[in-house]
């Protein structure tokens, strides 16, 4: 019987017990019957193997039972329940990390490990590794964009001065001739301006509203009094858009590459215009490869598909099942293969191979297996295999996930390469009958447009593949001949949200080949492994040593109240680690220092409370009143003190970077938790002490 079914039956038993007790005891009816509700829901969650709902409901069920006891009073029982629930949830969040690489060695069953994704990982400075910071050269991207406008403006001017007409690009002669009328200059700096000067021969009234209309959306302009000199500047919001796009694109590309290398533990993050890549490990050769691969320009290619040859069909017939890699199967689809005499589409079934990624396998590993197998095949001359990532949608949750890779038979010749693509942009489809749809508008350079015209003419109703860095990204069907250098690719899905996402993705793919976002390394840190190991040892020793001394002191100084304080400080540490684990934060040295500091503040809160209670006792109050008053009066000092620290933590997290940010995050988490542990957790103990077992005559605080 699977574990979650056993747990479900435990819930069932609790359901029955609670129901019976609630029926028999009138006084306990409310908590007990609430408990039965939780148990029923928890049983359902356990049965369908939903771990966290099951855990939360389980904790709630037990809390309901606890609230039905007779201990102290209901308020106290509820507070104690909250503390216990938080502790339990935190323990489960932290359990796998405790098992893995801490000195604690708390064995965590595989069943829990599979269901809890939270891991506390050691940061780069503790493990050693490489940290690369790349800066996106936004100015370069803006300049590129400006140069596009420059070209557009010249074309428009050629039309305005009747040197050219039609949608085609103007000829070289027309451009030479244009210089007699007008000159467009793109200064080296600032990179966002264009200067248009009209000669005496030109009629300034030609630069009218209609001409300006085309540029109004992205450019602002000013003119001289005689309207012969114009200054155009890219609008600020357009610049922001360019910046965001450049950074997003660069990040996407770097992510792909890091993925491609199979670096599972590498992390890619962005901050303003910086893209930060962190790779743990020590292998110098790896680092060299990473640096090299990241700084390469993306390679975008368009290749035609060969759907006429059913090559995979032959492979499938020849293959014996034993030699195929695990999870590989041959599937069939219907592909368009051109037009017949009546100009109707011909469809032909073709076979392709699909490899399903294994349960414990990454998508990248599945591709490696696929490639290994493909290397044993011999495609026909001038043909090659391309691989595309396949997604599958879970019919229940509608969640999409990567399921494996499929093949395409491609013509080896790259008809169009990235430098022939001018621009690509995802746009909403405003045609009739396509509510909310999206497509990708694609513009080619002169040369690219001509080639694309030729290809589309010869291959109507056939598919071609868009390939980025050797991975097939999309296989659109050519519907008709496309002349004039611009095309649009519509998305296959019916769901507009999926269409938008796919369009954005394809836009990025096409642009990364066309407009490589210029990135340059701006900072590099290599942390040697010996440094990392030393740091871990010293950091842990420092923390443990310092912590033990403080705990011991508190016990000596405050006796039993000191033990309560010690408990809440240790719990504080434990909860902080659990919260950091759920954030997926990595522990760095400044992070550990932040942890130590908030532990100090948690000690402070407890000291404030204990001193207050002591004062009240000295003033002759009863133990119960002293505790009540002590907490009440210490509250404002604790909250004010912690909140001011929280303020600097938040500011640091907002404006800080790298190590400072790690420090700030632990500070924020720690301060929040220490308010909880000081005001709620220790209070629960104090109340149990003074009120739990009859009336306490004397409270001894050191």
């Amino acid at each position: 019987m699977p574990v979650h079914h056993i747990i479900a039956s435990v819930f069932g038993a609790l359901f029955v017990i609670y129901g019976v007790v609630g029926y028999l005891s009138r006084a306990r009816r409310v908590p007990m019957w609430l408990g039965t509700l939780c148990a029923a829901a928890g049983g359902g969650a356990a049965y369908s193997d939903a771990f966290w709902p099951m855990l939360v409901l389980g904790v709630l069920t037990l809390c309901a039972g606890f609230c039905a006891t007779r201990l102290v009073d209901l308020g106290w029982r509820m507070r104690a329940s909250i503390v216990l629930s938080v502790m339990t949830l935190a323990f489960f969040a932290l359990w796998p990390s405790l098992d893995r690489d801490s000195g604690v060695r708390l064995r965590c069953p595989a069943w829990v490990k599979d269901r809890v994704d939270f891991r506390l990982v050691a940061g780069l400075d503790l493990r050693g590794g490489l940290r690369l910071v790349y800066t996106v050269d936004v100015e370069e991207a803006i300049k590129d964009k400006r140069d596009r406008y420059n070209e557009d403006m010249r074309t428009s001017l050629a039309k305005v001065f009747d040197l050219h007409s039609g949608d085609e690009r103007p000829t070289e002669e027309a451009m030479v001739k244009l210089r007699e009328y007008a000159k467009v200059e793109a200064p080296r700096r600032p990179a966002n301006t264009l200067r248009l000067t009209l000669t005496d021969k030109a009629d300034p009234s030609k630069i009218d509203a209609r001409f300006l209309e085309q540029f109004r959306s992205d450019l602002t302009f000013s003119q001289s009094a005689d309207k012969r000199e114009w200054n155009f500047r890219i609008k600020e919001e357009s610049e922001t858009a360019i910046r965001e796009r450049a950074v997003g694109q660069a990040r996407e590309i770097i992510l792909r590459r890091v993925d491609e290398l199979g670096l599972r533990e590498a992390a890619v993050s962005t901050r303003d215009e910086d893209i930060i890549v962190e790779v743990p490990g020590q292998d110098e050769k790896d680092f060299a490869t990473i640096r090299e691969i990241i700084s390469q320009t993306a390679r975008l290619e368009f290749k035609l598909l060969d759907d006429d040859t059913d090559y995979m069909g032959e492979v499938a017939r020849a293959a014996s099942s034993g030699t195929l890699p695990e999870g590989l199967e041959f599937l069939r689809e219907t592909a368009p293969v051109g037009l017949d005499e009546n100009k109707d589409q011909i469809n032909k079934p073709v076979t392709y191979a699909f490899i399903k990624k294994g349960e414990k396998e990454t998508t990248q590993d599945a591709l490696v297996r696929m490639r290994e197998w493909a290397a044993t095949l011999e495609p026909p001359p001038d043909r090659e295999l391309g691989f595309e990532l396949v997604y599958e949608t879970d019919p229940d949750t509608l969640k999409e996930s990567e399921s494996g890779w499929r093949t395409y038979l491609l013509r080896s010749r790259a008809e169009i390469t990235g430098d022939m693509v001018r621009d690509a942009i995802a746009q909403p489809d405003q045609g009739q009958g396509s509510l909310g749809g999206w497509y990708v508008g694609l513009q080619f350079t002169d040369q690219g447009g001509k080639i694309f015209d030729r290809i589309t003419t010869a291959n109507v109703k056939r598919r071609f593949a868009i390939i980025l860095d050797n991975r097939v990204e999309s296989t659109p069907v050519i519907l008709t001949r496309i002349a004039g250098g611009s095309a649009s690719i519509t998305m296959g899905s019916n769901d507009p949200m999926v269409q938008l996402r796919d369009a954005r993705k394809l836009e990025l793919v096409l642009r990364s080949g066309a407009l490589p976002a210029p990135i340059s390394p701006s900072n590099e840190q290599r942390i040697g492994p010996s440094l990392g190991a030393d740091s871990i040892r010293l950091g842990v020793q420092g923390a443990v040593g310092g912590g033990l001394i403080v705990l011991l002191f508190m016990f000596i100084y405050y006796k039993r109240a000191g033990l309560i304080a010690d408990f809440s400080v240790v719990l504080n540490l434990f909860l902080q680690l659990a919260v950091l684990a759920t954030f997926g934060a990595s522990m760095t040295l400044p992070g550990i220092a932040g942890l130590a500091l908030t532990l100090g503040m948690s000690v402070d809160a407890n000291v404030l409370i204990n001193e207050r209670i002591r004062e009240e006792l000295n003033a002759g109050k009863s133990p119960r009143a002293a505790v009540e008053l002590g907490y009440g009066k210490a509250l404002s000092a604790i909250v004010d003190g912690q909140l001011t620290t929280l303020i600097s933590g938040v500011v640091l997290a907002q404006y800080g970077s790298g190590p400072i940010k790690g420090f700030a995050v632990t500070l924020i988490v720690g301060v929040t938790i220490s308010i909880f542990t000081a005001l709620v957790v220790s209070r629960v103990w104090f109340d149990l002490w003074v009120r739990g077992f009859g009336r306490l005559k004397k409270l001894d605080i050191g």
Partner: protein
Amino acid sequence: MQFFPSGTVYDFMRIRRACALVSLLMVIASIVAIFRPGPNLGTDFKGGTEIEVAFGEGVSSDDIRAAVRSSGFSNPDVVKVDDENNPNRYLIRVQEVSEISEEKRTEIERVFCYGEGLDPAACPEDKQATEVKISPGGDKISLRFRSAPDLAEVRERASKIDGLALRPGDGNPLLQNARDHKVEVQLMSRGDQLMNGLRTNLGEAKVPAEPLRVEWIGPKAGAQLRDAALKSIAISLVFIMAYIAFRFDLRFAPGAVVALIHDAVITVGILTLMRKEVNLTTVAAVLTIIGYSVNDTVVVFDRVRENLGKIRGATFASLINVSLSEMLSRTLITSGTTVFSLLAFFVRGTGTLKDFALTLIIGLILGTYSSIYVALPFTEWLDRKFFARAMPKKRRGPARKSEEATV
């Protein structure tokens, strides 16, 4: 156990003048030190290249300095790092980054015949580059030519440029795109150059194959980091001040802010005088000190506010004495335990960790001192000097009560 018996009132305010003088002198000395000689800014803020190397036996810092100088770096900073496992571990810092200066840029453009008004004899058409781009990180030059370039010739031309070191290997320069004749020339990073220089000057045996750590920050990134750090300090100051003004009274805010500026300035001053490096970690430490100092001050203020309502007919100064005495155990226990746990880091830690702990310890001690001898005396002085006479009848809350107390 109890360090200070309850009910005892210590006369803190008696020595406030002497303390004010000491604090003032320390602040002035720190400000002077911050301007001259100035803090020892780390690579984080200055930009530059930094490597840490575990050398073999018998290498002195003078040898290293000489070796670094003779490989073409000016003004190297060589610091010995304490490390039990690597007795000869040194940190070498140079100002140079792999960035290419404006002059070098012009020279590169000249060598590759880029621009207008070229001498046709030296620059025949097929040798003219139509585009010269230098990456901001200074690790590569990309060139575009009219016709297929001779890569060996490009390499030769590039290596003629003074101070430009090409990365060794066959694929350099690399023909990136055959269609539009785009060539990429890869340059050696400063870290590689430093290691090479050390190897040739000190001998292969004494220099390991790989440094322990390499770090470089472009000057632009350094300036950005510095500005972000200053900005974050300024912003948290404003927020903390606003919070105190909101939670207490307007006249408490200046005292708290003076105290925390006092702590931050003197901490940086002491670090400057100790010639410790000021870097991002220091900024984190200083921000912690600010947070801690305010925490400490606010807790004491809280008690003063409470006593203002409770104790009548006493002077503000004696009221402060009472409040401080009541809080004395707490203040000392909290700072004591925190300093203690930091001492463990200071004693056991190395490098960054040690400096971080040291900064915090200095700051915490100052923070405790300042909430007793700076924040409250300043508030009292302010109250006596300005509020007492300017506003004889205050409207509300603690302010009015303190008014009664002083009269």
